């Protein structure tokens, strides 16, 4: 109740610009809990975002060239897209920039910018040789001063990744929240003629092939520490569960019981995997402790049980079962008690994905109009809301901050990956391909890339 009251006060403050808001731009990296809630409020309501202007980064010391121009637009576009995607920011379109917005390097037209409602201004310079060096300066327009200066350096080929780092740093500094701009998405692609795993940046750039099994690979799931990924492959004949371990740069067989070893999901603590085994004559859920190798059976039912997803606290598991006659989403305690059916609309509900962070929603796939939609519901099963309406939309997976969903849709003919906000807005196509399908995504945890 008091939380609600607090939220209302914050909202009033935001609306009337009476401002705890003015404080933001001078916040340091140690942000108190109160200001965090302000920004959670921003994202959940989708209003009163931080208005930011990003000036084109200026090249230093070299003659103008196509390469320089490309670097300039890569930096500007990537940072701008990242901040927009984060839902914290309202990016001021360059068309609205004041006349002669930079007269001199240090001469910021604070008044002009504040007239445009701008709260923050990002300025940058860069040098390009074999490496790219970027200097950023962030100004608070409301406080009329420089609040942060930072230098970055990376190999030239890493320029996009460097831009993502700048975005994450800005988000952290201005909101106290960890950004997701350096995250990756792993997915299944048919582009080689086989189903192999590929990885790209969360915005679809920088795609590279991870497996070359010349076999069927399915259902990748990125471990919560970022250093491992499980998937099912037929490369040894049977659908076995494999784990790619980047810490030791190896791949191990995690589970190879006769029959299915599939739809694996990492527990939030990264110690256990919940998955489907058919070794006992029926499709049942099991939990494998990946360190001790101990296997615990979770479900006992003649029907199909599959596709588990852990709650962020790790004490509950949502999954699919056809025990009622067709696939529906259920929830069960991770110790096997308190089974409860969650979905009742339609005769095909599958692929539950528990929202990380707040843990208040479950995304899932539902077929109500003959094709699949991505929907969300409360963890009690109430308020089912479908977020898509064109084509088939399958395997929703949350971003690590719980504000975005990646899914595969065949709305354009072939299956491709799309991202959208948790509300279903801002749908963006992430992968492209005329013949090949790209599907079955999993979103990495937050990452921080090393540059050199």
């Amino acid at each position, binding site marked *: 109740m008091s939380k609600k009251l607090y939220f209302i006060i914050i909202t009033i403050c935001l609306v009337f610009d009476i401002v705890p808001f003015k404080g933001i731009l001078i916040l340091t990296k140690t942000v108190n809990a109160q200001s965090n809630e302000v920004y959670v409020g921003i994202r959940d309501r989708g209003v009163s975002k931080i208005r930011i202007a990003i000036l084109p980064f200026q090249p230093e010391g070299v003659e103008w060239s196509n390469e320089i121009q490309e670097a300039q637009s890569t930096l500007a576009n990537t940072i701008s897209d990242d901040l927009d995607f984060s839902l914290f920011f309202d990016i001021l379109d360059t068309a609205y920039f004041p006349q002669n917005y930079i007269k001199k390097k240090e001469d910021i037209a604070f008044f002009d910018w504040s007239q445009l409602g701008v709260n923050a201004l990002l300025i940058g310079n860069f040098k390009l040789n074999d490496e790219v060096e970027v200097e950023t300066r962030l100004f608070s327009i409301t406080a009329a001063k420089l609040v942060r200066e930072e230098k970055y350096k990376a190999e030239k080929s890493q320029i996009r990744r460097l831009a993502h780092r700048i975005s994450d740093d800005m988000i952290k500094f201005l909101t106290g929240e960890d950004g997701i701009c350096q995250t990756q998405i792993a997915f299944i692609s048919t582009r080689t003629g086989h*189903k192999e795993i590929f990885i790209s940046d969360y915005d679809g750039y920088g795609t590279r092939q991870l497996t070359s099994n010349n076999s*069927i690979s*399915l*259902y990748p799931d990125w471990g919560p520490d970022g250093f491992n990924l499980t998937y*099912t492959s*037929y490369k040894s*004949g*049977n*659908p076995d569960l494999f784990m790619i371990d980047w810490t030791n740069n190896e791949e191990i067989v995690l589970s190879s019981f*006769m*029959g*299915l070893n*599939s*739809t694996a999901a990492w527990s939030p603590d990264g110690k256990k995997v919940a998955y*489907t085994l*058919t070794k006992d*004559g*029926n*499709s049942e859920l099991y939990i494998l402790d990946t360190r001790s190798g101990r296997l615990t059976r979770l479900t006992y039912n003649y029907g*199909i*049980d*599959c*596709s588990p997803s852990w709650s962020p606290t790790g004490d509950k598991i949502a999954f*699919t079962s056809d025990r009622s006659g*067709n*696939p529906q989403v259920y929830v069960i305690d991770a110790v096997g008690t308190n089974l409860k059916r969650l979905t009742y609309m339609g005769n*095909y509900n*599958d*692929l539950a994905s528990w929202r990380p962070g707040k843990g208040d929603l479950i995304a899932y*796939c539902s077929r109500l109009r003959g094709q*699949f939609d991505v929907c969300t519901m409360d963890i009690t099963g109430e308020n089912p809301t479908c977020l898509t309406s064109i084509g088939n939309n*399958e*395997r929703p997976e949350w971003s690590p901050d719980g504000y975005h969903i990646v899914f595969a849709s065949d709305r354009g003919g072939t299956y491709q990956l799309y991202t959208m906000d948790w509300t279903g807005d801002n749908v963006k196509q992430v992968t492209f391909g005329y013949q090949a399908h790209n*599907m*079955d995504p999993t979103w990495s945890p937050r990452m921080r890339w090393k540059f050199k």
Partner: protein
Amino acid sequence: MKKGWITMLMLLLLALLIAFSGCSKKQEVEVVPPPIIEEPEPQVIEPVVEPVKIEPLVLTKIHFDYDKYMITEEARQTLIKNAEMLMLYPDAKIKIEGHCDERGTNQYNLSLGQKRADATKDFLVNYGVNASRISTISFGEEKPVCNGHDENCWSKNRRAEFVIMD
């Protein structure tokens, strides 16, 4: 003296001659040539075709209703024939592959395909085929036989296939 020498020589010659002629007389015993053993022509014996297993081991795939893994009546008839056939070949081992159409989710279809393979195996075992001869695998919707997006193709893809193992 000299005459005596010649006479001695003549006598010796005579004796030799007699001895020789006696020898050649013995040789005159007819030498019977060894009998020609007639080797019999290696006869190619045509193996007698046993009329028991006229039919080669061919197992017919079965189909399923949408999102179901129950054996339909039509599939039951096919499976009875398959089971009878398997009993004629008691050494044959088979793998049953369960498949689905494209409409469900890939993940659920893996389990559904396994259910179909298992239901098929159960039927054969209950009919009397030794369970140790049968293994199962699910390919979900990963290996369609028909690539269209209509019921005509979907019904072909919802199937259990029999692979005869070596």
